[in-house]
């Protein structure tokens, strides 16, 4: 179906209603939850800092080795998992060609110039502005979710080691 403009109405409808906007905030929420989970696990570890320290400074070398073998990868996993989640959270929108749908480009114009530019648009350019925005948001979502997935992978391994460490602390103290 072609509308009264150069751009087919179907293209315009898809451009304006493509559901890409909700995915970056969704990835942000997941990254925040992951950061909170890492924070909780670290806080609980700190509650058991005194018995852990006692085991590490204790007379049993096998227990020291066992604890170190868990603590070192655990620290690495917590750090890398938090880093992935933090990077997912702070990833900026990829650059896009000049688009009147993107806030820095709008704010870069004076109110008068913005008004003039928008009023001078034809459907082709208006739809193209939307498509550039959609594309950048889609690529941003992919980048964010890739980092969130990595962080989730680290969180799974972290959780297993964390449980193991807590059990060992309870058994060996």
């Amino acid at each position, binding site marked *: 179906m072609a*509308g*009264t*403009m150069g751009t087919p*109405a179907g293209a*315009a*409808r898809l451009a*304006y*209603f493509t559901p890409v*906007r*909700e995915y*970056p*905030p969704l990835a*942000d*929420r997941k*990254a*925040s939850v992951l*950061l*909170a989970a890492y*924070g909780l696990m*670290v*806080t609980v570890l*700190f509650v058991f*800092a005194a018995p852990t*320290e006692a085991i*590490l*400074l204790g007379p049993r070398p096998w227990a020291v080795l066992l604890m170190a073998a868990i603590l070192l990868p655990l620290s690495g996993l917590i*750090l890398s998992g938090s880093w992935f989640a*933090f990077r997912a*959270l*702070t990833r900026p929108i990829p650059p896009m060609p000049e688009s*009147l*749908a993107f*806030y*820095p480009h*709008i*704010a870069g*114009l004076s*109110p008068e110039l*913005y*008004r003039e530019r*928008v*009023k*001078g*648009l*034809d*459907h082709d*350019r*208006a739809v193209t*502005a*939307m498509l550039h*925005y959609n594309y950048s*948001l889609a690529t941003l979502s992919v980048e964010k979710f890739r980092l969130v997935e990595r962080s989730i992978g680290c969180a799974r391994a972290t959780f297993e080691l964390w449980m193991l460490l807590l059990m060992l602390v309870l058994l060996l103290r």
Partner: protein
Amino acid sequence: MNVPEPPVEELASPTLPDQVATFRHLDPAAALAFRTPLQEHPPAADTKAAAIITALGIMFTMLAKYGTHLMEMLTGRGLEKFLLTALFFAFSVMAVLSLLQAFRTISPRFPRSSPSLAFFGDIARLSREEYVGRVRSISHEQALEEILIYNHNLATICVEKFRHLGKGVRLFRWAFGSWLLLMVLLNLKVLF
């Protein structure tokens, strides 16, 4: 702006659920202006700023756990004392500045501009009757004008928020680096 009346058969034709009934006769400026995706950016900046504040809270709590050892090392002697003092100072300054930027990101801001019937503050300044009356009597051209003012204001707010957030994130990275080194040194001191 004079928009020609659509033929009756077009008005009677079915529309799909996502389709605005007037779409075929909507001018391109209005199509983009009324659907410019701006609303999601301020909450996104706030979420990230909140994460920085939470992370700093956890980092301070964990550092406080080592308070005694930290004081011992800070009042100690030699290289250890200077290294610890430099790291602790760097962490404190970066963390406080990052916290400040995070709060500046979250703080509500309403830049001065022409009033717009799309902005809640300007709507609330009118009485209910006045608001309903003004919107009901508005022309297409005036409605477009109102939304353009609103879009420009919100875009300016977004740029301002993300500017503070960007600074906050950079400072947080430095604060995190200093904190990590501090924690490693403190743990080494505790263990050996």
